[in-house]
Structures are given as C-alpha cells and as structure tokens.
C-alpha cells in the first residue's frame, strides 16, 4: 500500500512532468504541435536547421565547461576553508551568517556582481581612489566579457557557501571523527589527514548534491543574461532567444534545441549518477 502510494506520487510528480515536458518539446520540434508550425505535420526541418547552424553545439560545450569549472572552483574554495574553519568550530552549530548567502537568489547575486565588478563598479572605484588605476577603462573587464568571467564568479559565489556548509556538516559526523582519530593514531599529521582522509570522504558523501548543482548551473538563465558576453552564450539563453524571438518561425527550432539539450544533459547526468554510485559501492 505505502509503496504503491509512493510509486504513484513519484510518477505523478516526477515521471509524468518530465515525460510530458519532453514530449511537448519534441512534438513542437517535429511540427506535430502547432506552436509556430501552422497546420501540424511531421517535419525534420527544424532539427536540420538547428544542427546546420552549429551554434548549439558550441554553446553546449561552453555551458558544460562553465558549469564544471564553476563547481570545481567552488568546491576547491570550500575545501580550502575547511581546515581553518574546523579548528575554530567547536560545536555542531554554525553561526547565522553562513546561511545568508543561501538566501540570495541568482538574479540578486548577478546584480551584486555587476555593481561590484563592472568597469565602473565598486572595486574599480576603490582602485581609482587608491591610485591603482587612472580611470574606469583600465579596470579589467569582468562583466559582459567574452569568456564569461563575471558569470563564473557569480556561480562560484553562489555555490561555495552552500558547499562549505555541506562539507562542514559532513566533516562533523562521527564517522569522520572516528576515522580522523584512527588516522592520527597511525601517525598521520593533521594536514595529511585533511588531505587524504577528510577531503575524499567529504567530497564523496556530497557527490550527489555537487551533481545537482552542476546541472542547476547548466540551466541558469538570469546570470548570463545580465553578466554574460554576446559572442558565445550559455544554452538556456540561445534557446530562449529562439523560443521568444521576433519570429514565430523560430519557435519550433527553440523547442528542438531544448529537447536535444534536455536529452543530452539527461544522458550526461545518467553517466554521472552511474559514476558516483559505482564509487559508493566500491
């Protein structure tokens, strides 16, 4: 009874939405649903246009690179802070300010990065006041830059406090505590323990959540919209452009992109899930 109910709820809230969402996107992209298609009839032309443009693949590559490097950067910072913070954290509670970043949505974070790092932003003003640079134009370009440094920084800024809390909480469990004791009784220095015992455990324990963040970063829209460059843009922006462009004709192409992209990421995430569960079993 309970399991059946759980299955039903799972199907209702997880399987069906994904299934319907994807089939709708596929339907539009193949011309079977009339959005921007006129009379419904099967066609591959939207997919052909999509692949012939070549923009999508470049964009997917860029998006994955951006997300992966942002997650890696955030995880590295959080790991680096782990040891000094563990030393000054006697109990199992964290002070309130650790949770402040969790209450900042992407759009506001992007706005903050913009105000702080733009050529005429706060840092640039401080640099001018300190006489480090003569004027705004000599400040390094971090916002709307070609590579998306501003976008990257914002993602790192959003992710690393969350990772830090996760890591601290994992490092505080009894299991880690015991292993730490074992390792130190075996003669390992505390730096060594941190590197070889705590970090691997903490990363492994939180692997599923790191993956969710990775996928979440893949899909963000507001941050690159405000801070990204124009030359190469994350997939979400390219898709929305097509879906909400000036022409009805490009709508199905946008849906083709979103369906293709979703399937691509689904395959990627499946591999990732496989990967971490193997590491679990080992």
């Amino acid at each position: 009874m309970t399991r059946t109910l759980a299955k039903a709820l799972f199907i209702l809230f997880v399987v069906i939405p994904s299934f319907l969402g994807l089939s709708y996107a596929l339907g539009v992209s193949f011309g079977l649903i009339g959005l921007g298609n006129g009379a419904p009839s099967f066609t591959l032309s939207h997919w052909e246009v999509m692949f012939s443009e070549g923009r999508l693949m470049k964009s997917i590559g860029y998006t994955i690179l951006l997300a992966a490097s942002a997650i890696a950067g955030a995880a590295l910072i959080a790991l680096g802070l782990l040891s000094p913070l563990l030393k000054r954290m006697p109990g199992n509670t964290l002070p309130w300010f650790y949770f402040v970043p969790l209450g900042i949505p992407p759009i506001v974070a992007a706005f903050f990065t913009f105000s702080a790092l733009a050529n005429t932003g706060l840092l640039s003003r401080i640099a001018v006041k300190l006489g480090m640079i003569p004027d705004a134009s000599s400040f390094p370009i971090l916002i709307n830059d070609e590579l998306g440094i501003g976008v990257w920084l914002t993602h790192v800024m959003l992710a690393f406090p969350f990772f830090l809390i996760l890591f601290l909480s994992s490092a505080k469990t009894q299991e880690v505590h015991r292993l730490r004791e074992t390792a130190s009784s075996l003669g390992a220095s505390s730096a060594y323990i941190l590197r070889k015992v705590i970090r691997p455990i903490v990363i492994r324990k939180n692997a599923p959540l790191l993956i969710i963040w990775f996928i979440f970063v893949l899909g963000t829209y507001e941050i690159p919209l405000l801070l990204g460059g124009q030359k190469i843009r994350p997939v979400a922006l390219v898709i929305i452009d097509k879906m909400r462009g000036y022409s009805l004709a490009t709508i199905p192409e946008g849906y083709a992109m979103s369906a293709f992209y979703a399937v691509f990421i689904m395959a990627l995430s499946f591999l990732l899930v496989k990967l971490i569960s193997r590491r679990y079993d080992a």
Partner: protein
Amino acid sequence: MRQLTTTFLTCCILILWGCGSSSSNEEENTLVDSGPQTWEQTLQQAKGTTVQMMMWQGDPFINAYMEDYVIPTVQNQFGVSIEISSGQGTQIVSTLMSEQQARVAESAVDLVWINGETFFQLRQIDALYGPFTDDLPNSDFINWDSPFISQDFQQPTDGYECPWGNVQYCLIYNSEHVTSPPKTLDELEDWVKQHPGKFTFSSDFTGMTLLKSMLINMAGSKTALDGPFDEAKYNELSSHLWEYLNRIKPYFWREGKTFPSSVAPMHQLFSNGELWFTMSNNDGEVENKVLQGVLPSSSRAYVLEGGTIQNSHYLGVVKKAKHKAGAQVLINFLISPEAQLRKADPAVWGDGTVLELTRLPAQYQEEIKRLNNREFAPTRASIEPFALKEPDPEYMIRLNADFRKYVIEK
C-alpha cells in the same frame, strides 16, 4: 514492475480525460459578439467586471500612472476594475498560443499591450478580437491619417488594436563631452573612430530599431523599405550595413566584442560616464529619466538627419477575452484626451500622444503648449520631419539574426 506500469497508465488516462473534458468546452464559447451594439450597451455590460490586463511593468513611472491614476479613475467613472499582470510580447504570444492549442473557451487575459511583431504574430494566429476601434467614441480624436498610427510595421491595424502612444527613436548624448553630435552615418563613423570605446548600441529591440533606421538611411530614401519584405533589397542594404558596422566595430565600447543586452545597462554605463551615448525608442524618455535621476542632466536627445524610426504602441483585446466590454471601456478611457495628455507629461510618463491635437477641445490647448516645452529632448514637431516608418517585421527578424551572425559572432 507491473504495478508501476499500471499506475503510470492510470495517471495518463486521468490526464487524457482531462484533455477530453476541456476540449469539449470549445463549442460552448458563447462569448462571440452578437451583432453590433451601442456604446451605451458596452458601458452597461462592462460595469462590475474586472479586466485582466497584461503589460510590461518595468518602469515605476508607468506603473504609478496605471495604479494611481488609471485604475481608480476607471473604477469611479465606469465601475470597471482592472487587474494588471506583468508580461510582454513573447509571453503574451506564447500564453495565447498555448491557450489556443488547449482550445480553452475563455482566456486568462483580456487586454494586452503590444506592437509591431507581437501584433503581427497575434494576427497570424488570429488571437485578437476586432475590429473594435471604430466603436470607441474617443477614436474620433485619433490621428488615423498618420501612417505611423494606422500602420504597425507596415501592417494596417484594421481596427484590431488601438494606438495608445507614439514615440520616435532617438540617440542620447552627454553634452558635457559631446558638443556637436554626429548626424549622419559618415559623421558617426568619424566620431566613433575619434572617440574609441564611447559608443555602442544594445542587442535588443531598441538596438534593432537603430539598425533599421540605419538601413533606411543607407537606402537613401525614407520610403525605401515600404511595402512587403524584399529579399534582394534587404541583402544588398544589409551587406553594406554589416560592412559599415564591422569597419567601426573595433572603436565601439569594449572594441565591439560585446554589446549591452538591453538599454537599461546602457543607461547605467552612460550615467557612469563609461559611455557618451545611449539611446531610447521614446524621444521623450530622456526628460523623464533625467527627472528620475537615472540619466545626468547633461543628457540631450536628437535624431539622425536621415531619420529615425517612429512607431506606436497599441492596446489589443484578446479574441477569447472574458470581459471584452470592460476592455473596450478601459481602452476608450486610455485614449481620452485627459488620459493621453497626462501620460505625455514627462513627470508622469513622457509618452507621445496618438491624438490629433487640433481635433481636441479647446480646454486642452494650454496643456499641449506646456508639454511642448522640453528641456532635454527636441520638440516632437522638430523631429517629426525625420520620422521613418517601421518596415515589415521580417526586416527586424532578419536583422536580428544576421546581426548576431555577421557582427557579434564574427
């Protein structure tokens, strides 16, 4: 596994049942108008209804105009309530399109604020109610003779949307740094080369309006792009345009490697002094933005000698709207001399009127004179001769795609 399949199928059936039951409602759409009716009847019908209006709400001035003036006045005078939800062009189109696909009998939206390509798209999918503008008493004041009002992107409005405001594209410069702004494309080229990094345009609708203006400027005739989309003409003119832009791109802001995504950040860059030029689709915007403190008081607006695009924005009634009468009453109020002139005041909104001033009752003439005194923008009368018509929407669609391809991604 079998259990799983059963549950899944049950859920699917439920949903299909839902589809079935809703599509059967389609025939019950009894809201189609039953022949012509008098304005009195419309007023009567509208009383007590709540009109759902969808519009762009990004500007505090516009919101205040609606919230503090329009809503209470319409409620008092006509007993019509208004609920505004935020949403523009693409969301309106996608919502109405999805509603059509789902064959709903009544739309969630009654009234929409649209223009240009949105109107074109909504007409394409037949989502607008009309023709209705002739039924509005205040439409007598509208300057229907102006092609800038009766045609929206070369497409006759045909009574399916009612003009609400009319504006002309202008460039805005900082008079502290720029003494005589470039008025032709050649002058612009020289200026940009002499002042690297101080000029750019946005990659959104406003920037495209500049590109359209440039395209017509290059054609040499104000009416060059009139009529339906002309592929050959476009190809020839646009190749000149990309050549021109790529030539001066290295001297743009950020060496032309990127463009601001909309005018909002451009205004910020401008007020911070990083840019010496910004721009607006609305010739009067500089007045209200200076008042708001967004732009510095050294900002000045002007138009190119070869002309800039003038266009109108409109109000449309949704075909499946629940409250068509209420929507029409609201529109009629919005184009009343009182509401239009108030809207034209830069301290309120600063949006150009669509009314023919000479047709207005005498009591409004004083008011009009006052509004003609602009401090930072040229008067409407002075830029009117340089107005260009919006070309066919296809021009913008192509410009937008090709600008990305031949300029940004190059």
